[in-house]
């Protein structure tokens, strides 16, 4: 191979373009080094170090939002830097910050090593950020595997609890299956697009742009469509869309609460970022196939998620299954995104509203939960409004936003998605989604009812079996308060996010 070509390829590796990811990697490594170097009594400050590092990285990213790499490919076409990618980067950093805040509350109740948790969260976040900007199947798969392997460990992190280990095992098996499906699909696409007998065949079939050109030249190739369906199935596992939602309730229940939040928001958003890139740009020529598949998936996901959540009594299972229905609403947006330009912004707005509301709810959950993290019952919330009005108010705002009650942010999110779906012409799906919203109000309000209107009747013979509630510290109180405030404010004023949304 010519050495000049090698030099050229190496010169395209612009490490400056991925400085937030590099920062996260360095901080993660520094955490491990600090654990070795620092004396034990200073270890309590290491999580704060991780948290401040994340906040600093987020500030740096927002400050350099319009970076020079925007709109360009770097790393020989492995990454594509776009505005959407920048938004998702900020999204994942925000998720990581909130996960770290929740983890401080949740890990304090367990006898577990602490530092490694933050290390894993940082690495997984970095990989998600790369995932949302990937422009090449090699990069996509490597980043996705890093995320998934990080989650295998995080889900089973409370290893003294059998529920956590069981969840880890289930996630491992289902994750391996979904990675297998994704790989089968990628290999089929790679093989077909490299066939020299076909028009527009390409040697770099893993590259999204080259692949999109090939698919546009061969719009009805059977093997390519088989590959596309398999790739979509692999991604659908990550977002928990029907019929690939089978792992959701058990894994969400068994995983430590901060990890459940990370899975519900971070992992799902990563899946949607990938799905949006694939369905909108790469597989655009196969809309005849992709759109019906996504429509069927969206309809089934909305119906299943809402009906299954109705009967749940464990709040972690409830929020997991309601998360499935949220995936259905987002899929509705992805369907619309093929034709309606506004839909992309609507999906990002929905994701942000979902992030804010979910973390408000999960934050309350970590405070109400006891040492047994998987046992969080609706009954534990009885009388919350009397004993801790602040937590109950945050819970009510968070759940209200998830249910889509006006004027909260979740309502605006659903509204934008529904408007774009309406413009996209998916009318009957819209009717189905509206029915789903009505059902969801029932179970969300069951939870609010437990917190506000139910009295806790202690059993006569034994002591109170409910876990003791954690008092709200300053940092978590501030975080929860600002999340609730943001849920209300975003409902009235969408700010630059809304401008970006309507501008598109």
């Amino acid at each position, binding site marked *: *191979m010519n050495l000049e070509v*090698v030099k050229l*390829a*190496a010169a395209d*590796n612009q490490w400056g373009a*991925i400085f937030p990811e590099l920062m996260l*990697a360095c901080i*993660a490594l520094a955490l*491990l080094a600090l654990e070795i170097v620092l004396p*034990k009594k200073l*270890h*309590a400050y290491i999580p704060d170090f991780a948290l401040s590092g994340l906040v600093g990285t987020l500030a740096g990213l927002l400050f350099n939002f319009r970076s020079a790499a925007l709109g360009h490919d770097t*790393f*020989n076409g*492995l*990454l594509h830097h776009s505005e959407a990618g920048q938004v998702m980067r900020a999204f994942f950093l925000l998720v990581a910050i909130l996960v770290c805040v929740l983890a401080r509350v949740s890990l*304090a109740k367990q*006898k*577990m*090593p*602490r530092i*490694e948790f933050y*290390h*894993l969260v940082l*690495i*997984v976040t*970095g*990989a998600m950020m*790369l995932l949302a900007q990937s422009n090449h199947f*090699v*990069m996509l798969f*490597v*980043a996705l*595997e*890093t995320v998934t*392997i*990080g989650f*295998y*460990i995080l889900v*089973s*992190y409370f*290893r003294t609890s059998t529920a956590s280990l069981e969840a880890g095992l289930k996630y491992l098996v289902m994750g391996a299956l979904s990675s297998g499906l994704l790989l089968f699909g990628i290999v089929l696409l790679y093989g077909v697009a*490299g*066939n*020299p*007998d076909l028009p527009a065949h390409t*040697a770099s079939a893993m590259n999204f742009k080259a692949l999109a050109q090939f698919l546009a030249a061969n719009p009805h190739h*059977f*093997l390519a469509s*088989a590959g596309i369906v398999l790739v979509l199935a692999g991604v659908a596992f990550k977002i928990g869309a029907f019929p690939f939602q089978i792992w959701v309730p058990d894994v969400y229940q068994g995983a430590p609460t901060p990890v459940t939040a990370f899975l519900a928001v971070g992992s799902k958003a990563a899946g949607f970022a990938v799905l949006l890139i694939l369905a909108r740009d790469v597989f655009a020529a196969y809309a005849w196939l992709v759109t019906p598949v996504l429509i069927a998936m969206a309809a089934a996901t909305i119906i299943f998620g809402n009906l299954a959540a109705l009967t749940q009594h464990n709040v972690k299972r409830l929020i997991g299954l309601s998360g499935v229905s949220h995936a259905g609403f987002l899929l509705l947006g992805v369907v619309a995104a093929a034709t309606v330009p506004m839909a992309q912004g609507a999906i990002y707005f929905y994701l942000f509203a979902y992030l804010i509301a979910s973390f408000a709810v999960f934050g309350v959950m970590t405070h109400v939960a006891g040492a047994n993290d998987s046992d969080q019952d609706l009954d534990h919330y009885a009388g919350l409004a009397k004993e801790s009005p602040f937590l109950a108010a945050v819970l009510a705002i968070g759940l209200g936003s998830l249910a889509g009650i006006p004027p909260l942010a979740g309502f605006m999110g659903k509204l934008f998605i529904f408007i774009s779906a309406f413009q996209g012409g998916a009318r009957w799906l819209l009717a189905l989604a509206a029915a789903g919203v009505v059902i969801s109000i029932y179970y969300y309000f069951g939870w609010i009812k437990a917190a506000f209107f139910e009295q806790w009747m202690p059993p006569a013979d034994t002591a109170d079996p409910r876990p003791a509630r954690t008092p709200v510290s300053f940092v978590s109180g501030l975080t929860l308060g600002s999340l609730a405030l943001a849920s209300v404010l975003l409902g009235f004023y969408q700010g630059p996010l809304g401008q970006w949304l309507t501008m598109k």
Partner: protein
Amino acid sequence: MAQILFYAFALFTLACAVGVVVNKNAVNAAMCLLLSLVGVAGLFVQLDAYLLAFLLLLVYAGAVVALFLFIVMLLDMKDTAAHGFRKISGFASVFALGLLVTGVSTFVVRGRLTTPNPNLAAAVGTDLKHYAYQLFTTYLLPVQVIGFLLLIAMLGVIVLSKRWEGLDDIK
């Protein structure tokens, strides 16, 4: 000749793969897996993918299966009572067989699987030098990410399996 060799290796691979599934003894199943991987390596050699064949033997057949055997022997599995045959599993397997046959036949009928053009461009991974150049220039970023993947995998093993002592002091 090539045709006969292909069918021989393919049959060998499939037979061994079936052996992995039906064998009750875990050690025998692992050995079948090893043989199946050797068969796949043979197929790779026929495709002129020598590097891939070599890596498959070295990493999977050599290291991974040996690790499996270690763990199987360490756990000393007793023959657990097999689940009795249930009607539902019979229906499920017939249904799955139907799906499988449909899938494979669809690929054969509609996939337009033809003998590939003999003047195919050589794929990237065929010779080691080319492969190494690519790995450390074009694909440098994924290689770095894989480094972190391995790091967290190692960390995960430690966190999930180490006997922690003195955790009370960490508060």
